[in-house]
């Protein structure tokens, strides 16, 4: 990586070989997916989680987005697995942004990820109550 590279190595790794790209089948007690589209740039992000026994057993994402958001989604999915569903609300996007060295002008874009996770949390809480 060159010092003036807009993407750090973690972004590049997550981007070129995302381990959590894709969807989930209905093998979990709860499978829930949420999509948020950002209107200006047209970025879209879907996150799907599979819940078993109150724990996030698996998390996957799909994105039509810039490399930083793709990488952020990948890191988020990695981090969410084996967490309780509270993790969706406690999610610290700023920590991820620091790890990914997201430039200031892009921080707004990455917040889409928080929106998706919040939406997911709401959906799941609702489906548990039902």
């Amino acid at each position, binding site marked *: 990586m060159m010092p003036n590279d807009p993407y750090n190595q973690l972004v590049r790794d997550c981007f070129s070989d995302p381990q959590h790209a894709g969807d989930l089948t209905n093998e979990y007690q709860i499978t829930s997916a949420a999509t948020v589209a950002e209107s200006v740039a*047209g970025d879209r992000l879907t996150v799907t989680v599979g819940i078993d026994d109150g724990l996030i057993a698996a998390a996957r994402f799909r994105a*039509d*987005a810039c*490399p930083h958001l793709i990488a952020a989604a990948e890191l988020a999915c990695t981090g969410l697995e084996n967490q309780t569903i509270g993790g969706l609300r406690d999610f610290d996007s700023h920590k991820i942004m620091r790890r990914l060295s997201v430039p200031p002008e892009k921080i707004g874009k990455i917040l889409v990820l928080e929106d998706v996770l919040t939406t997911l949390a709401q959906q799941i809480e609702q489906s548990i109550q039902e």
Partner: protein
Amino acid sequence: MTDAIVYLDFASTTPLAADVAAAMHECTAAENIYGNAASQHPAGRKSALVVDHARQQVATLLNVEPERLIWTSGATESNNLAIQGVARTRQHRGKHLITMLTEHKAVVDTFRALEREGYVVTWLAPGEGGLLAADVLADAIRADTQLVSIMHINNETGITQNIHELGHICRERGVSFHVDAAQSTGKVRLDLSDAPIDLLSLTGHKFYGPQGIGALYIADFAAVPITPLVFGGGQERRLRPGTLPVPLIVGLGRAAEIAHEQMDNDLRHLRALNRRLWKGIADVADVLRNGSAEQCFPGILNVSVADVNGESLMLGMEPICVSSGSACNSTSGESSYVLRALGRSDREADGAVRFSFGRTTTNDDIDAAIERYRYAIKQMRSLAPGP
């Protein structure tokens, strides 16, 4: 897939030709030429001599008299000198100027700056195939129009305007005509000997010459007087003072000479590469070609898809070096205004890739680019959420 850099961004800047580097090296090291070309002493005269020779080389490329050429630092400066220069000199006669929406930033931003000063600019939209129709230009010319500036080859699409036809209209109407030929000089035949062109900008690093040197061709100093941008010594007829950068000028001259000799070969080579590249990606689903093969310079192939993020596509293209229509690769923060002026949507402009190639590009380079482009599009699409 290849891990080595494959450079397909020749429209941005070209590598220095080995012969150009050699000429510059010979000038500095072997012939020990370093004097100030404005000095009358022997060291200065040695420099003046090679500067004259280079001016002749560029003049030969354009088929003009060498005295018509003014050295500048590049096409950005040449464009500014021509446009600001004529506008300011002529402001007492009228403040109306004409250009196109699809010009390079160095033209667009210059006109925008003049607008802020009170000049009135008509921004013509391209018509069919990105071309400016002669009658559209004719209709735009007013009694107070002082200058029309239209680029020759577009830097993003390769679309080539009919500058001779447009120039004739300007000449008939007594309006000065400037051409930004940064992308065409040294690449396509440009015979200015009886062309209706008053001013023409060129830059060395687009045709294998050095970065930081360009020229402005001025057909008639008396007929089209120009207010300088910078003031100082008497160099370049007082239009562009400053110590002449002798090795750069030598490099630009040599690049012009090589371009003159190689042009037909170069063009044949580019046409073959262009066909090969398009053949390799034309069947990618929903791919759009920005500019048709007929009206485009073959060294550029610009293609769009509407359903992938431009910035990610660029990263996915690495280590193939191409240029994009996306916001993130530009300092302006917006997707290509050129492609949008051609009727492309924001998303199509954002998902554009400009492949540009040149004398040293090989079939293998093109094949690597095809493979990578197909792969990147496929990856992006497979990653995307459903509609």
